[in-house]
């Protein structure tokens, strides 16, 4: 299978305005990320708040400008693509935003909201009533919802409206930014089942941005772990979850509630907050919080090490001999 989306060394740089006591400069919110998503597959991006995962998603959706690198969609370069040409691709590359209600235009009825893609993309000829009914049925909402306004529906219902809107035009790639944020656990489950079902039916590739590891474990094929704007570990979800190599991945998994009390996973607790992206650590950017860090970690930037169906960037990766973790 060929890659639908191929991201190479993407950097998203923001200018920082200087104040009276500070000089102007720039920060790299995303700093050299490469990954590729295959048609019909699900790719999860995991990371803490501020790790640059939303910025990466928005760069792919053409909402932020990537300063360096390349974003190839079916071989076509998206970086620097003028909006007039990008607009046609917006039928195929769609995005769902974090805030279910806040991402719906508050003065539009649900019907207007879900049929808006047709109007924007110049498909007014369609029977919008029929399309609205089809889309509401697709996401499991009764037709009466067409007359509601965003302030009259719940977060979970708004999320479904968001899905209907995103999938109205039969896209090829859905970028879902925190699709389960702000939803009850039971509704989160429904949401994920809905996405999985629609993915099967429509042959959709999904790039899912989340900090919820259980979501990633259950619905993604591949996963990338992001820290301070860079991927630290990347690969097939099963491999990354069963045999994490990078200490940051280990720590994330250790922090995730484990329903099985017999599961033996090393506990790693991270101290402190992630460093400021304005003041990026030298060497491996994780060394300031890494419990295993050694001298060279603060000077040498680790390069990618491929280990089976996954890869990581760490000088001292965990090894998984005989199912037992022994770092370094």
């Amino acid at each position, binding site marked *: 299978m060929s890659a639908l989306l191929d991201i190479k060394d993407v950097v998203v740089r923001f200018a920082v305005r200087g104040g009276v006591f500070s000089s102007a400069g720039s920060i790299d919110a995303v700093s050299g990320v490469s990954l590729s998503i295959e048609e019909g597959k699900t790719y999860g991006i995991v990371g803490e708040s501020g790790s640059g995962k939303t910025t990466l998603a928005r760069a792919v959706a053409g*909402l932020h400008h990537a300063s360096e690198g390349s974003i190839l969609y079916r071989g076509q370069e998206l970086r620097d693509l003028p909006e007039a040409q990008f607009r046609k691709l917006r039928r195929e590359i769609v995005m769902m935003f974090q805030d279910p209600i806040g*991402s719906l*235009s508050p*003065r539009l009825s649900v019907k207007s909201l879900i049929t808006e893609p047709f109007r924007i993309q110049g498909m007014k000829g369609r029977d919008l009533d029929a399309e609205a009914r089809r889309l509401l049925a697709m996401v499991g909402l009764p037709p009466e919802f067409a*007359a509601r306004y965003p*302030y009259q529906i719940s977060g979970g219902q708004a999320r479904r409206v968001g899905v209907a809107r995103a999938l109205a035009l039969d896209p090829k790639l859905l970028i879902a930014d925190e699709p389960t944020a702000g939803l009850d656990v039971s509704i989160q489950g429904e949401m994920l089942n809905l996405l999985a079902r629609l993915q099967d039916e429509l042959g959709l590739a999904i790039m899912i941005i989340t900090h919820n590891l259980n979501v990633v474990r259950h619905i993604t094929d591949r996963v990338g772990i992001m820290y301070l704007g860079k991927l630290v570990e990347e690969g097939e979800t099963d491999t990354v979850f069963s045999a994490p190599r990078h200490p940051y991945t280990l720590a994330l998994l250790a922090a995730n509630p484990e329903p099985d009390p017999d599961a033996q996973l090393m506990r790693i607790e991270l101290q402190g907050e992630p460093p400021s992206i304005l003041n990026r650590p030298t060497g491996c950017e994780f060394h300031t919080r890494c419990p295993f860090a050694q001298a060279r970690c603060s000077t040498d930037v680790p390069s990618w090490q491929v280990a089976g169906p996954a890869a990581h960037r760490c000088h001292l990766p965990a090894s998984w001999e005989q199912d037992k973790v022994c770092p370094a």
Partner: protein
Amino acid sequence: MSDTSLPKPRSEMGEILHHLLRDPLGLVGLVIVTLIVGSALLAPWIAPYDPIAMNIPDRLQGPSAAHLLGTDQIGRDTFSRVIWGGRVALQVALPTIGGAVAIGLILGMAAGYGPKWLDTLIVLFFDTLRSFPTVMFALAVVALVGPSLNTVIFVIMATSIPTYGRVVRTLTLSLKEAEFITAERALGASTLRIMGVHLLPNVLGPLAVLAAMDIPTVVGLEAGLSFLGMGVRPPTPSWGSLLNDGYSLIRNTPWLIIAGGIPLILTTIGFTFLGEALRDVVDPKLRGKGGK
């Protein structure tokens, strides 16, 4: 697939009116405003006398069955002049506010949504306009082209553009970063569509409130300018010129100044109530919450 039609959402205007009528403040405001606008529109049929016809023998009368609010120093019927004065007041207020809102809306949205240089330019323009004191500006324009209704409209409109423009700009700036606007961009909506379909309806509500509250100010300004002799020319009846006449005759008859003052007060109360009630109603999230 069933062929039942989808339910139609209730229209925004219907929704607003429905909630407005259930708010006592809104109801009182609406009644007063309807009364003022209605009497101004129907002035030729309501007013018992010609507002500029002199009748010297009946001058300076108190209220009577023949003259409900008495007469002035040349025997004109005050009640008729109040009714016709309302016409002048609205003739000034509506185009003034309408023009200022329209221009402020366009400039404010362009400043808020457009590039930085355009924003700087428009804000500079607003600040320049705002720095003119209305009355001084009016004096200068009157000195140039002479007093008239159009002068009043032009002066008040020019000096109130920044008020609306700045409110629209601020609202636009805060909405621009809202997630639903980013979501529209991600769908490929054009700038024009984002401004017209998604920004405008969210800006219009607060703006309508502001405009309703501003109508009495403009009516008062018109009265003030007419009082100073810079507004409408005699013998055209205006609430300001009624006050002016009444002021000089206050020792002979208090009726004139009372008759000129009461409609001003009523206009202020009516539009302010309406504005207050609108504020609670135009935001769909606050609708029907009952109470503040």
